[in-house]
C-alpha cells in the first residue's frame, strides 16, 4: 500500500446544501420560504380546481342557500323549528343537538371514568378485575358497533306506546322514549330562576370563604346548614312573592303516541350511553396513570398524619394527579365531541346527520356545507381546549409548579 496523498471526496451534496441554504443547510430561511410558497400554491391549486369543476358542472355554489326553505322536519329540536324554516335554522338545530349530547356525555363519561379508575386501583381483587375487564372490553370494540348495540338493545327491550311501562301514572317508558311531565313556565318563572342562580352563587362564595378561613386562620365553619337554607329558602321566597313558577303538563296517550309532556328520545339515550361508556374507558386509564404518577411517599405522609385513605386521595393525591390527567383528558373530550357525529347511524338529528347529511343531499352544495361543518367542529374543539387549558393553568398556578 502506498502512502500517496489523496484528495478529499467530491462532497457534491454538502457543497450544494451550503450553497443553497448557507450554514443552516436544508433548514435555512431560503428553504423555509420556498416550502411555504409551495404549500400555498398547492392550496391555491386545490381551490381553483374545485371551483373550475363546480363551474363546469353548474353545481349551485355560494352561501345563499342558507336562506332557503328547508322543507323537512326534525324530530328533536331544542329551539322551535318547523318544515318551513331556513337551512340556517336547521344548522342551529343540529348544532344545539350536538352540543347537548356532547355535554351530557362528557359529564357522565368523566364521572364513570373516575369511578372505574379508582375501582381498578382498589385492593379488592374482584373490583379491580371487573374494572379492568370493563376497560379492556370497551376500549377495543369499535364505537359504531357499541352505539348500534345500545340502540337495538335499548329499543328491543322496550314496549310499544300502547303497552308502556308507567310509573305512578305520570312517567311512561316505551320504545318512543321516556315521557315525563313537562313544566310550563308561568309568571313566576324568571324570578324563580334568578333566585336559584343567586342561591348557587352564594353557596359557592360561602364555601370558598370557609376554605380560606380553614387554611388561613384554622377556623372551622360548618357551611352546609347555610347552603341548604339558601338553596331551599331563596327559591321558596321567590315563589311566595311572585307566584308559582310553572305548572305541570301531564302526558296522555292519544292515538299512536303520547301528547303533552316532554320526551327523551331513545336515540339520545343510546347515543349518550354509548359515548359515555366508550370514553369512560379511556378516561379511566388516564386517571389511573395520573394517580399512579403521584409519589408513594405522599400517600405515606398523609397516612402518617392520621388522614383516612379517602381523605388522602381527595386532598393530597388528586390535586397532584390532575396535572398529569388534564392534557389527555382534554383530548378525550375533543374525541367525544367528534365521535358524536356517528349519531347519523342511529337516526339522532345531530349536526352531521341533519346538516351535512339531509341538507347536503337536498341542496347539493357539498363543499360549502362540509366546510361549515368542519369549521363548527374545529370551533367546538378549540373552545373545549381553551376551557381545559385555562383550568390547567389555574391548577399549575395554585400548586406553585
Amino acid at each position, binding site marked *: 500500500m502506498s502512502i500517496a496523498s489523496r484528495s478529499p471526496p467530491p462532497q457534491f451534496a454538502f457543497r450544494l446544501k451550503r450553497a443553497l441554504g448557507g450554514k443552516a443547510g436544508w433548514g435555512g430561511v431560503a428553504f423555509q420560504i420556498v*416550502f411555504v410558497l409551495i404549500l400555498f400554491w398547492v392550496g391555491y391549486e386545490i381551490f381553483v380546481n374545485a371551483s373550475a369543476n363546480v363551474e*363546469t358542472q353548474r353545481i349551485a355554489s355560494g352561501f345563499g342557500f342558507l336562506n332557503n326553505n328547508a322543507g323537512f322536519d*326534525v324530530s328533536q329540536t331544542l329551539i322551535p323549528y318547523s318544515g318551513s324554516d331556513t337551512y340556517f335554522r336547521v344548522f342551529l338545530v343540529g348544532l344545539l343537538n350536538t352540543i347537548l349530547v356532547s355535554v351530557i356525555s362528557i359529564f357522565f363519561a368523566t364521572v364513570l371514568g373516575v369511578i372505574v379508575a379508582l375501582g381498578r386501583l382498589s385492593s379488592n381483587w374482584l373490583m379491580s378485575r371487573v374494572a379492568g375487564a370493563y376497560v379492556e372490553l370497551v376500549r377495543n370494540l369499535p364505537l359504531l358497533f357499541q352505539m348500534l348495540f345500545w340502540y337495538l338493545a335499548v329499543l328491543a327491550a322496550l314496549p310499544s306506546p300502547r303497552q308502556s311501562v308507567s310509573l305512578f301514572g305520570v312517567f311512561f317508558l316505551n320504545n318512543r322514549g321516556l315521557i315525563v311531565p313537562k313544566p310550563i313556565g308561568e309568571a313566576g318563572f324568571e324570578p324563580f330562576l334568578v333566585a336559584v342562580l343567586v342561591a348557587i352563587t352564594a353557596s359557592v362564595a360561602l364555601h370558598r370563604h370557609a376554605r380560606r378561613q380553614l387554611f388561613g386562620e384554622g377556623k372551622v365553619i360548618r357551611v352546609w346548614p347555610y347552603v341548604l337554607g339558601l338553596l331551599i329558602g331563596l327559591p321558596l321566597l321567590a315563589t311566595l312573592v311572585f307566584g308559582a313558577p310553572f305548572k305541570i303538563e301531564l302526558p296522555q296517550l292519544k*292515538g299512536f303516541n303520547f301528547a303533552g309532556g316532554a320526551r327523551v328520545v331513545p336515540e339520545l339515550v343510546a347515543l349518550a350511553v354509548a359515548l359515555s361508556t366508550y370514553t369512560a374507558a379511556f378516561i379511566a386509564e388516564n386517571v389511573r396513570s395520573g394517580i399512579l404518577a403521584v409519589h408513594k411517599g405522599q400517600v405515606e405522609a398523609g397516612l402518617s398524619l392520621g388522614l383516612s385513605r379517602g381523605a388522602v386521595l381527595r386532598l393530597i393525591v388528586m390535586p397532584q394527579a390532575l396535572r398529569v390527567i388534564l392534557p389527555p383528558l382534554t383530548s378525550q373530550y375533543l374525541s367525544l365531541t367528534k365521535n358524536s357525529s356517528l349519531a347519523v347511524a342511529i337516526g339522532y338529528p345531530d349536526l352531521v346527520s341533519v346538516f351535512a347529511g339531509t341538507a347536503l*343531499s337536498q341542496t*347539493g352544495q357539498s363543499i360549502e356545507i362540509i366546510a361549515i361543518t368542519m369549521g363548527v367542529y374545529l370551533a367546538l374543539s378549540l373552545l373545549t381546549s381553551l376551557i381545559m387549558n385555562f383550568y390547567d393553568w389555574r391548577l399549575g398556578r395554585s400548586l406553585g409548579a
Partner: protein
Amino acid sequence: MKRVSLVLTIALAAGLAGQPASAQTLKTIKDRGMLSCGVSQGLPGFSSPDDKGNWTGLDVDVCRAIAAAIFNDPTKVKFVPTSAKDRFTALQSGEVDLLSRNTTWTLSRDTALGANFTGVTYYDGQGFMVKKSLKVNSALELNSASVCVQTGTTTELNLADYFKGNNMKYEVIAFATLEETLKSYESGRCDVYTTDMSGLYASRLKLANPTDHVVLPEVISKEPLGPMVRHGDDQWFDIVKWTLFAMIDAEEMGVTQKNVDEMAKSEKPDLKRAFGTDGNFGEQLGLTKDWFSRIIKAVGNYGESFDRNVGAGSKLQIARGVNQLWNKGGIQYAPPIR
C-alpha cells in the same frame, strides 16, 4: 431532502389534476374498460345483489344496456352501492359515471346538483306502509304517528308537506341507509314507513313477515324515477338517454330478446333504421352501428325488463299501470330513432 421531494410530488399531482373534468366520460369509460354505475344498497326489483353478488333489477338493466352498447358485454359494469345520503356526491365527484338508482326527477336536482336526468325508467308515487295490527285504513288517520324515512330524499320533503297540509302532527326519524330504516320500522320504533310505492312493495319482501304489513292506498306525490348524469358532457347524456329510449322503442316495434336476429333482417323502414341497416344513428351517438341490437340482446326491451324485475315474472307483481306504453294506456313514450 425527503420532505421536499414529497411536497414536490404532491404539488405536481395536484397541478396535473388541475384540469377541470371535461366532456370525456365516454372516453374515460372506454379506457377504463368498465362502466361505473351508482345503484342502491339493495332494493329488490330495482337494484339488488343476490347471494353470489350478481346485481339484478330495472335500474341495473339500464346500466347493463349501456355497457352492452359500448363494450358488447353487459357484464362490464362495476356497481357502486350508494345510500340516499351520499349518492349525489358520488356522481358529482366522478366516482360513478351515472346514477341509476330510483332517484326522483326534480327541478333542484336537475340544476343545483349539477346533474341531468336522462329519462324516466319508472313513473312512481309516494305511499305509506303500516303494520296490519294498527288497524289503519287511510293515511289521514296517521295523526301524531312516528314515521321512519331515509334522509336526503324527496320522501322527507313530501312527508312534511303532506302532514302540514292535512294539519296532522308526526314525529320523523331519519336514517342514513335503507337497512337501518327498515330495521327501525320492524322493531316498532316507528309506526309508519314511507317511500315510493315500488320501494314499499320491494322492502316489504325483505321484512320477516311480509303479510303483517299493509300498504295504504294514498299516493301523495309524483315520483318519476330515472337515471342521472353530470352536467357538462352532452355526448354521454345523449348515450344514456337514447339507451333507455331504445328499450322503449323496441317494445313499441315488437323487438324482443328472442327475435332480435330475425327482426334485424326485416325490410320495415323503422326497423332498418334502428338496427343500423339504414343511416348511421349509432355512430352519431358515438357508439357502433349495431348499438340497438346489442342493447336488446343484452337486456331485452322495456316490457321484458319490467316483467322480469318488478312485474308479472317477479316476486313484486307490480302491474304495468302508468308504466305501460303510450298506445296501450300508459305514459311511457320514446322519441323515434330517425
